[in-house]
């Protein structure tokens, strides 16, 4: 079960149980829905900007432990970041879960989010981990809907 423990680490299980910022944002200036057609999961990401800075970010929806924990930790990380920083993190995260970025050797700003590098061993779950980030990216770019397929 060693690989499994890489995936379902304590932190991920805890965020799954108690997702942070699991709420709507009244009057959010940006929001988008992300669909994972493979499993029918959907989540909505809300963003409120203060100028160029992410003032508040939250999410609602249904999903597996990986997608929920990923969304939860994403919202924690993004508050206070500029739009540019948020987009850069989206790309780093995406590169990590698709194996293009090695969190041990390549420079990155992922911090706690490195925990999701474990999904590399579980190709079927990569989209679960990246759903919230794709949704965030869509929201920031002014699209209202995105799909992982």
């Amino acid at each position: 079960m060693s690989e499994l423990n890489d995936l379902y680490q304590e932190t991920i299980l805890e965020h799954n149980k108690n997702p942070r910022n699991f709420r709507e944002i009244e009057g959010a200036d940006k929001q988008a829905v992300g669909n994972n057609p493979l499993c029918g999961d959907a989540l909505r990401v809300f963003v409120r900007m203060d100028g160029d800075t992410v003032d508040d970010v939250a999410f609602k929806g249904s999903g597996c432990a990986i997608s929920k924990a990923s969304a939860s930790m994403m919202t924690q990380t993004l508050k206070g970041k500029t739009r540019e920083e948020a987009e850069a993190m989206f790309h780093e995260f995406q590169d990590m879960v698709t194996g293009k970025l090695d969190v041990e050797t390549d420079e990155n700003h992922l911090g706690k989010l490195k925990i999701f590098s474990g999904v590399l061993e579980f190709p079927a779950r990569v989209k679960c981990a990246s759903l919230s980030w794709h949704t965030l990216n869509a929201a920031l770019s002014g699209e209202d809907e995105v799909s992982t397929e």
Partner: protein
Amino acid sequence: MSDWDVEKIRKDFPVLSQTVNGKPLVYLDNAASSQVPQSVIDRTSKYLAEEHSNIHRGVHYLSQHATTAYEAAREKVKRFINAPDVNCCIFVRGTTEGINLVAHSYGKGFIGEGDEILVSQLEHHSNIIPWQVTAEERGAKLRMIPINDRGEIMIEEYDKLLNERTKIVAVSHVSNSLGTVNPIKEMIATAHKLGVPVCVDAAQSVPHFPVDVQDLDADFYVFSGHKMFGPTGSGVMYGKREWLDKMPPYQTGGSQIRTVSFEKTTYAPLPAKFEAGTPAIAAGIGLGAAIDYLNSIDFAAAAAHEHDLLEYATARLADIPGIKITGTAAEKASVLSFTIENVHPHDIGTILDQQGIAVRAGHHCAQPVMQFFDVPATARASFAFYNTREEVDKLADAVQKVIEVFA
């Protein structure tokens, strides 16, 4: 199950003897696709190694040989489902293609403005969307036959929905998401009182029990080879001649014509009319071999063994606190769909996979069923006659482990 030697049967399926993630494979995803016995692999390889050529075209030795083998497979299909006429067994790529064929060609021939198409709430997307498209194209209305809390079609509602505008009923013999066995013989009889034909999605029935399309009086009966121990790319659309003769072709092109000029084409007789282009010859011959295999075992004992597994698994899982079984119809085959409180089915699927256990986690291409039960997805174990009670025990233990991880 003394009259079913499962260990002996397992030896016929080479895939089953491997290990996955360091554990012996426990293959419980048979409803998605079943495994293939050595005899089917051998027959398909022999064809590719020794007999391959295009069919129905060459006068040369190999072409004749391939044609004979392919047509022999069709004859096996006919006997397997007791079709009245071998030429009414149309080879298709699978259930999806077969239903698209019926929806398109029957729709074009017989469905018009204001007509109605009845589809049950239990259906796989491939028995919903083609009808949706046909309804839209023909200006017809798609109406849904509802299910009850056990996942059974509400027959009283079906009777009420049928009317003189109904042009076809599309219903599965066995539901892939819940395992419900639908009373299709009765449903067909009711529809026929109004002269309405019935298209049966048989993807999940033919692998599990003997079928007689004449006894059922089915107008169309459609299934996939890869769910009945045959290769992918093989499948059958059986249709009554009275409909097939009057329906326009689905795809058009080579092999399905009588004469062609730029002014007019006349079509070949059945089955060629519905089989444009070079078919999946190896797959079709492999399907024939799968039928030979099913004829070589005691299919009734196999069905009894599967039923025992389903009941045993249902009892084992029902015993675990926090588990909910979705689909509790009185008549079920092969499928056990379940959810665990506060655990997403995908997480169940991944953790089971680490134990070497293959199940399906998702909406099973039946989102209306998921919506009805108000779940985004379920985990689904589906059994074949080569599964064992020990495998069910492993499933139950692994499910217990999932609950511990998420406790």
